[in-house]
């Protein structure tokens, strides 16, 4: 009789301990501060994720949580496995109704997104990130790791660093100063040193002809480019014949020696998105520069 009650106490005690332990391990709510400065609380790692920014979609997939995505924005197109997911609109036309239907645990979006307030009032959790530079992406990967309950950000970031190192080795002689001009738009708008592309250029120890004081994407006077005499010109939107036809531009070494890199639409996506593929972006740039330099010698 006495031993029975003893065993009962023991069972109840063990059960209580297990319950408490499991609560502590599995259901401890974690709170992560996003780029708005708001602490977002998650009871458990989100199982249904909507991403409204291509670089965030890519980051989630790089952390190995591609399977948890249930909806993406219109511009997300990498990796291939997500292309069948419902597309929920673009910058100005996010499909709120569809997002509500999908019942996501969290919506990942950009800090300046206009739909944050609307989603909040509908009771949908949002996590906003502001990714403009390499440092931003490193921080975003760490925060996403915490949100998703993964521990992959260190590995992803190392991979990026290794790829940038490989890209650096592709360039012929690293001591040589290669002056580059990266044009993002034929108006002409250039990629400055503080832009994401500019950061990759400096990682490759290339000299951007645009000084840092001009900001990320300055509209530049074309004669400044002629005077700066870049050795290589990188283009995303115009083509080489546009550049050759510009008044006075034939005096630029890059134009006279035909060292003009024109990137395809797929390559452009890699180049302009500050995401986990930035190592690949560095490789694309250094491969093209290496080809152009060796063929014109």
């Amino acid at each position, binding site marked *: 009789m006495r031993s029975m009650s003893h065993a009962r106490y023991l069972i109840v005690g063990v059960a209580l301990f297990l319950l408490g332990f499991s609560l502590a391990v599995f259901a401890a709510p974690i709170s992560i501060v996003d780029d708005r400065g708001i602490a977002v609380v998650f009871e458990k790692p989100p199982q249904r994720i909507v991403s409204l920014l291509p670089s965030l979609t890519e980051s989630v997939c790089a952390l190995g949580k591609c399977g948890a995505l249930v909806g993406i924005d219109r511009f997300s197109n990498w990796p291939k496995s997500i292309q069948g997911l419902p597309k929920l609109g*673009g*910058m*100005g*036309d996010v499909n709120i109704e569809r997002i509500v239907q999908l019942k996501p645990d969290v919506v990942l979006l950009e800090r300046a997104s206009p739909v944050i307030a609307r989603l909040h009032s509908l009771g949908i959790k949002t996590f906003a990130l502001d990714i403009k530079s390499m440092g931003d992406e490193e921080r975003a990967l760490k925060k996403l790791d915490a949100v998703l309950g993964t521990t992959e950000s260190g590995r992803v970031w190392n991979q990026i660093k290794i790829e940038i190192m490989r890209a650096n080795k592709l360039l012929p002689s690293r001591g040589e100063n290669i002056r580059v001009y990266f044009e*993002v*738009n*034929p*108006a*002409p*708008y250039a990629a400055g040193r503080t832009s994401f592309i500019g950061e990759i250029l400096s990682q490759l120890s290339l000299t951007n002809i645009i000084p840092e004081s*001009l900001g990320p994407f*300055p*509209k*530049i*006077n*074309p*004669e*400044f480019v*002629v*005077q700066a005499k870049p050795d290589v010109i990188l283009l995303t*939107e115009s083509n080489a014949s546009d550049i050759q*036809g*510009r*008044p*006075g531009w034939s*005096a630029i070494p890059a134009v006279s020696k035909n060292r003009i890199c024109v990137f395809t639409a797929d390559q452009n996506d890699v180049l302009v998105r500050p995401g986990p593929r930035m190592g690949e972006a560095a490789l694309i740039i250094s491969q093209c520069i290496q080809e152009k330099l060796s063929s014109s010698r």
Partner: protein
Amino acid sequence: MQKNYFLSKLCGLLILSVILVVLGTLLGSTGASWNVLGPDQTIVFDIRLPRSLGAYLAGALLGLAGGIAQSLFRNPLADPYLLGSASGALLGVGSILCFAYLGNSWLEIIGLNGGAFLGALIGVLASLFLAGGYRSSLRLLLSGVVISVILGAANSLFTFIRPDLFQSIQSFMLGNTTLMHWSGVELMTIALFLCLAITLIISPALDALSLGENTARTLGLPLDQLRLVLIGILALATGCAVAQTGLVAFVGLAAPHLVRKISGGRQRVQLIFSCLGGGILLLSSDLIARTLFAPLEIPVGIVTAVLGGLYLLVLLRRTPFGGRS
């Protein structure tokens, strides 16, 4: 007596124009640099000179077109973009950019400038068609507004489908004088002389029109044919300017007002001065746009709007109430 005044005023405006063009070749991407021998010859003769001349000519074409539009419609708020040419040109540029990926050789031959020119002409033709002819000014004005709205909406649809083109289309909308060629300068010179010559020959019709349509008819002028010719010149001048520099704001509207006071009311003088005034306004705006934050540039349309708008405000303050200006 009045003739002499006209000549001295004309000389004054011409000298101002020449000074601005010389300034245009001196001021470069490094701010105000006065050493003429220093910079490369290609920079002065292949970049700065065609750019300055091109900006001046485009402004002159817009000023002329604005003068014609205001006299033709007898409306001080009329501008060259009124008959749907602006939205037509914008749509032309938008569709060329949008379909560039097809790699069609026709699209490459037409190019952005050709697309803008064709678009502007199509816009004006559509307005004429919608108005059922060119006989009624009011119908023309209304159909121009309607065409502008419809073509503008079509263009918004383009930018909605291809948001990556937004920046290119916006730089066309704000006006862009940066990449002017000698070939563009030649084209605009020919267009300007052609338009100016024809306009000056038939400017008496505009004088008659300023008395009112019915009075003009009783004077026995072939009003309808002359009106068609003027609309043609309006479309040609606007199309040429827009094709080379984009939709520079406000020059066509402001230029005729800027010179109204010194032109003394005669249409022929008014049109010549409005032509010169447009050129001076656009070139000085271009100079400011490229030197203010050199080597950065501000879109030239912003500067024309601020500069022309401020001058118009000053004129408005100084004109006594009841004055027509």
